């Protein structure tokens, strides 16, 4: 069994490094923070980490299949803008209408209350998933390179987001915002469970921030089953050796579409949360771009090879957290936040360059070109 553990560690050295790096940085951060190791700090961090963690997971799946999704930030932004209409939580429901080219189309009334919120969440996630599915179809059936295909679809999604929210605005149900962006105790109090969070057994876990719980839940309920599914393994196989995957009779096209679809779902989760957290929808193009780029960085720091076939969305979550913690440090140490992008870039370059040192060990230089 010790053997098995050793093998697992060696195979996941990228993830392990990311986890260790994050743990060290985060402990240091809390030590340096005047209110370190408090629920309040954790909650704040969780809220800042969530969206990037989701987008990083989203990026991981196509990368595992040797693709790249440049639309994850756009999908996130678009879903956030939808959420700012669908999750207003107005008791009487919200009238939905579409104003396009001077036409006014009434689309009926969206239900209010808790039904409305749940329906809205499902709709938002469905929109993200659909966007990912479209990406997959363009790549597989349009035979367009993933980079350029998702660059184009990303522009379309951003366009839709801008159409929905030409200026930042909209509203998110306040209870929903409160419940999801604070600790478990606040969540229980808001949705009136466990004696409003006062139950005795609940106290020891009441301090845990909801965003972290959500990340764990999404990873366990979506990513882990996917990875264990036949389709999920086909994604890895396609990224590892497409020819061998074909010889083994694996569904290559379906695997690729599934990879992009799942990416859309994760990006949708990120957008949904971002909207809930900020209580608004904002079609912020630079922000979308920054999230896409940081998602790639997170994937690499999290130990996933950009060549595909090896890595995990779990690693990318830690990659995202490493990136975020670095920015926390700037706050703590009162370093000009201006230096932040510089350090982010240097860390990214250092990470990939160290990973590239294996190049020096290659004995047959022809292998470099494969």
């Amino acid at each position: 069994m010790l053997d098995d553990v050793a093998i697992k560690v060696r195979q996941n050295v990228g993830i392990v490094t990311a986890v260790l790096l994050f743990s060290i940085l985060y402990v240091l951060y809390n030590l340096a923070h005047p209110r370190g190791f408090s629920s309040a700090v954790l909650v704040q961090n969780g809220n800042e980490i969530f969206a990037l963690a989701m987008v990083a997971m989203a990026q991981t799946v196509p990368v595992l299949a040797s693709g790249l999704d440049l639309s994850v930030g756009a999908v996130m932004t678009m879903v956030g803008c939808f959420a700012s209409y669908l999750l207003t939580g107005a008791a009487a429901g919200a009238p939905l209408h579409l104003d396009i080219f001077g036409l006014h189309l009434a689309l009926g009334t969206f239900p209010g209350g808790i039904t409305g919120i749940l329906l809205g969440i499902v709709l938002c996630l469905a929109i993200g998933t659909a966007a990912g599915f479209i990406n997959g179809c363009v790549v597989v059936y349009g035979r367009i390179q993933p980079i350029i295909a998702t660059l184009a679809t990303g522009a379309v999604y951003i366009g839709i987001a801008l159409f929905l929210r030409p200026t930042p605005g909209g509203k998110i149900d306040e209870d929903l915002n409160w419940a999801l962006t604070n600790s478990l105790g606040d969540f229980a109090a808001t949705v009136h469970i466990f004696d409003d969070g006062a139950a005795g057994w609940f106290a020891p876990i009441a301090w845990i921030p909801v965003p972290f719980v959500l990340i764990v839940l999404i990873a366990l309920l979506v990513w882990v089953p996917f990875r264990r599914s036949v389709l999920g393994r086909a994604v890895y196989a396609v990224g590892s050796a497409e020819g061998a995957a074909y010889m083994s009779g694996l569904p290559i096209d379906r695997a690729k579409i599934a990879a992009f679809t799942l990416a859309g779902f994760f990006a949708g989760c990120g957008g949904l949360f971002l909207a809930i957290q900020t209580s608004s929808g904002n079609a912020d193009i630079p922000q979308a771009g920054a999230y896409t780029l940081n998602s790639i960085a997170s994937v690499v720091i999290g130990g996933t090879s950009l060549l595909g076939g090896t890595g995990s969305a779990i690693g990318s979550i830690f990659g995202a957290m490493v990136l975020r913690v670095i920015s926390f440090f700037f706050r703590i140490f009162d370093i000009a936040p201006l230096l932040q992008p510089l350090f982010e870039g240097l860390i990214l370059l250092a990470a990939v360059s160290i990973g590239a040192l294996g190049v020096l060990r290659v004995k047959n230089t022809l292998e470099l070109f494969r």
Partner: protein
Amino acid sequence: MNSASLSLSRDDRPILIAALFILVILAAGTVYTFARFGSAPLLSPTYLLQQLQIGAFLGVVAAGMMIVILIGQIDLSVPWTLAAAAMMATSIGGPLAIPVGLAIGLLVGLVNGIGVAYLRVPSMIFTLGVNAVMRGLMVAHTGGYAPQTAATDLMRTLASDRTLGIPHALFVWAAVSVLVVVMLQRTALGRYIYAIGNKEAAAYLAGVDTRRVTVICFVICGGAAALAGVLLAGYSTKAYQGMGDAYLLPAIAAVVIGGTNILGGRGRYLGTLIGVVLIVLLNSVLSIMEMPEAGRQVIYGLVIIFMLLVYGRGERVVS
């Protein structure tokens, strides 16, 4: 002989389709303006020259980007290479402004090239990191505020003034274009670039120093981005934060719409030129139509997908 014409049409078809699409854009735009304002500004040389002057900055960036895409790589550091060159040029000022600006670009390109060619880090990720570093350096340098320094007179003259009614920026774009065409078609380096993009292993085994060529390509791309930055600063009379952000994706799109294979090895400079013109005209028609940013983005994305689907189908018929 038959196959010769096939191979010609394979590279020319996208260019032809893109050129036709430009005509469609012009026609549709003119119909619109005629119906709405009773005029046809799109067909006036003055207006077109003005649009092309703005397009020159994109054109220069796209020329460099094309070189890198031809060897099967990509340069995502263009936005902040451009901005850094502009900022350093304006803050140095004087006669050294332009040389310093360009040197910044060449240096960034050198770093990119070394990372990609010698460390073999995927260019996608390495240039992304370099972009972040450049952004960090510039933000630290300017304190995050708009730089107070102004472009030198020479920069303004190059970017804004006209001779014989033709904007100088167009001359610069033309000069860059001539250089690129000569390099791609007439020099050994040009052959090596296409060879590497087609099959790096075969080029390597033919005794081509593939690493050196890769570095040179990134240096060229960095230099082009820097030139565009210097020009843009001259045009706007100053450098500003994020001035390069609007150039990355349109440059890639122009190259791809011009028929250059995103995986490298194939594509003609004329195509990139037409791709740039297409994007510039599409933008100006959309602004005449007062299309909101939302609609622009959607149309923009759909045009790229549409064009690639059309090219792709043609290719399958050939094969």
